[in-house]
């Protein structure tokens, strides 16, 4: 994914910062416990397309 895009994207719900999971190709919002998928290099910043994080993914 375009690294410059990473700098500007925020969570569409809480507007908080996102963490890039390169391996899974996801953008993670820990506050909302959501993982936004990146498909074909395009981040899908839609709440209804996001994956709910498992408890072990947001507790550290």
């Amino acid at each position: 994914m375009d690294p410059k895009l990473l700098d500007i994207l925020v969570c569409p719900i809480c507007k908080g910062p996102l963490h890039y999971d390169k391996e899974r190709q996801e953008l993670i919002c820990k506050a909302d416990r959501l993982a936004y998928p990146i498909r074909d290099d395009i981040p899908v910043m839609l709440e209804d397309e996001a994956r709910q994080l498992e408890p072990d993914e947001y507790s550290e």
Partner: protein
Amino acid sequence: MSEGDKARVTHFGYQKVPVEEKARRVREVFRSVAGKYDLMNDLMSFGIHRAWKFFTVLLAQIRPGQRVLDLAGGTGDLAARIVPRVGPEGEVVLADINEAMLAVGRERLTDMGLVGNVRYVQANAEALPFPDDHFDRVTIAFGLRNVTDKDAALRSMYRVLKPGGELLVLEFSKPRLPGLRPLYDLYSFTALPVMGRLVAGDADSYRYLAESIRVHPDQDTLLAMMESAGFERCRYHNLSGGIVALHRGFKL
């Protein structure tokens, strides 16, 4: 969610559908027409949509180095005119809720050699995934009509604009020329679905187009909506007798 929320309905063309269903229905329409979208625009408007878009970009007065968000930018028609204007120091973000439209847009802009200063994001206009005060311009051409909660979308656009930034909304509106209305109605409800069926193989999507134009807020209603979202110095220009209007407003 309360019972009251569950019962909320919104326009999908002339039909009423549950609020939560509209986005999905609109997505289906544009997934269906993405491949033929640009050709259909030329046919349906006799090529005049190019002039409307040219006028929009002209009034936007985009300068090198600026950041522009082109919302519902789909196949990249507006972005193709904006990208060269911001130059290598600037940045254009093409956002659309529909992945099929975005894919067509990315391929088209890349084929035109427009790369490096343009990025692609699948996003909902009601909940934009960008920081506050980020863009110098937000443009949305023929997109606001399809958004479920237009007030939320306008507030979201206001939020991501920098102070001094400007929103430009190009959208179908209410014809103001006397005598134009009956002709326009006849054309859109008879000719458009037939053209949609013959060219794009999908009459229903183009019937939705004609209907959605009729239920969209008129010039003054949209102006008032922009003002309640916080925009200032709002004004509009009627194009082609008001078939289309360009609304502008500033975040000050």
